[in-house]
């Protein structure tokens, strides 16, 4: 299938970027990233700079493959990362516009690659539990409520891809942060530090320059792991509770 691609090209963080148009011949069994690989081979043969884009696992679990395809993070399909999007969802002759994720806290480094280290710093601020490692414990030593376990597991599905921030008109990281807070806070091991974790992670989130949550719901709609807005409510509750009750 022949496609016309309009791709954002930008040499470096401070350079001015612009769209460039390319023609590529892909087949419908390729993933979107494989289609970009074909384009890049073509560009290398023409002695041109290949398009820089993030990718790693290519199986929908690492969250690296950030890009906005025709206005939607990870493209048109629900609950799908770019690497899991296949070309059969496009038609012969389609024009596809590919842009980097946009948010102040995610500056473009090159072409489609953005710096998402703000997420790492939010995790560093509290996305862990402090226990001494050592001999692995018996799996059944700590009883876990089944409801909490499954809610925690749903939140733990977050792959830190940043699509929520990219989709949000306010560039807010509430869904990501709330997923992490819920994932840990719902389990007995994570409960101990729940209060300080919420405060520290929210504080870091604010310092990174993400926007506020207007309850638009674009994040939930675009999240490849279908993380629910319920998690944001849980974090709001926890934060209000933390402010009112902490010493």
């Amino acid at each position: 299938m022949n496609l016309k691609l309009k791709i954002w090209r930008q040499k470096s963080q401070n350079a001015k970027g612009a769209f460039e148009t390319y023609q590529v011949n892909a087949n419908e069994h390729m993933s979107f990233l494989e289609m970009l690989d074909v384009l890049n081979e073509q560009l290398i043969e023409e002695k041109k700079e290949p398009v820089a884009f993030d990718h790693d696992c290519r199986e929908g679990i690492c969250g690296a493959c950030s890009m906005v395809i025709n206005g939607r993070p990870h493209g048109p399909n629900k609950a799908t990362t770019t690497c899991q999007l296949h070309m059969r969802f496009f038609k012969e002759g389609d024009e596809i516009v590919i842009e980097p994720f946009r948010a102040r806290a995610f500056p473009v480094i090159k072409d489609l690659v953005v710096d998402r280290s703000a997420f790492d710093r939010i995790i560093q601020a509290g996305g862990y539990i402090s226990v001494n490692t050592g001999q692995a414990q018996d799996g059944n030593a700590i009883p876990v409520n089944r409801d909490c376990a499954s809610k925690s597991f749903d939140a733990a599905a977050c792959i830190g891809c940043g699509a929520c921030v990219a989709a949000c008109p306010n560039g807010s990281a509430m869904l990501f942060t709330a997923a992490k807070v819920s994932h840990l806070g719902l389990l007995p091991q994570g409960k101990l530090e729940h209060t300080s974790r919420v405060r520290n992670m929210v504080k870091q989130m604010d310092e990174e320059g993400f926007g506020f949550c207007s309850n638009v719901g674009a994040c939930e709609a675009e999240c490849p792991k279908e993380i629910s807005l319920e998690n944001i409510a849980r974090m709001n509750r926890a934060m209000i509770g933390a402010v009112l009750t902490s010493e």
Partner: protein
Amino acid sequence: MKWLFDFLFKSSIGRKVVMSLSGIFLMLFLIVHLLGNLQLFINDAGMQFNLYTYFMTHNPVIKTISYILYATILLHTIQGIFLAIENRKAKGQSYAVSSNVNKSFFAKYMIHLGVVIFIFLMIHMYQFWLQMKLGNLPMVNYPGKEHAYKDLYAPVLQVFKDLPFVIFYVISMLILAMHLYHGFQSAFQSLGLNHKKYNPLIQWIGILYSILIPFGFLIMPIYVYFIQR
């Protein structure tokens, strides 16, 4: 109390709590305001309405609440404007192709809707509130009452018979309906109240509220203009 100030005016979540609580207070006020105004429909040449406005402007408890109300409107407006400005900065560059995938359509336009509501409020206060406080309203006497009452009923009828104003009033109420349609349920989410047990209740009351309250207000100028001429 620095911790409280920091939370309510510096933390992202706290600033939304302010929007939510002030919004809920304003929504409660709208119910009371509407119920009071319904007395315009009583066919007594405005007596009940004028006695009511006298009570509302002289009772010390109501007067205190009204000062809290003015402060709340300012707080909600100023905080709302700051949030909108910072949100725009946080987004940075926008997309060449935009999509409209979301859960709540009006959420993105809360600031635009809000600014129109604020302009409406200013005109509204000038027309009715300022007249009541400072204006030279005619006085009326009612049988069995010791003193005369300001006749606010007359200027209300007068502006409600002015077509451009009636149209402006009706449009403002439709804008308010949109603000409330998102705002009602959003206020609960901001406070962390989201649970599948009661979400349908919040949703349905929100829809009913955001339709009935603005409709109740906009029916008054329409009634006066078309029926009570």
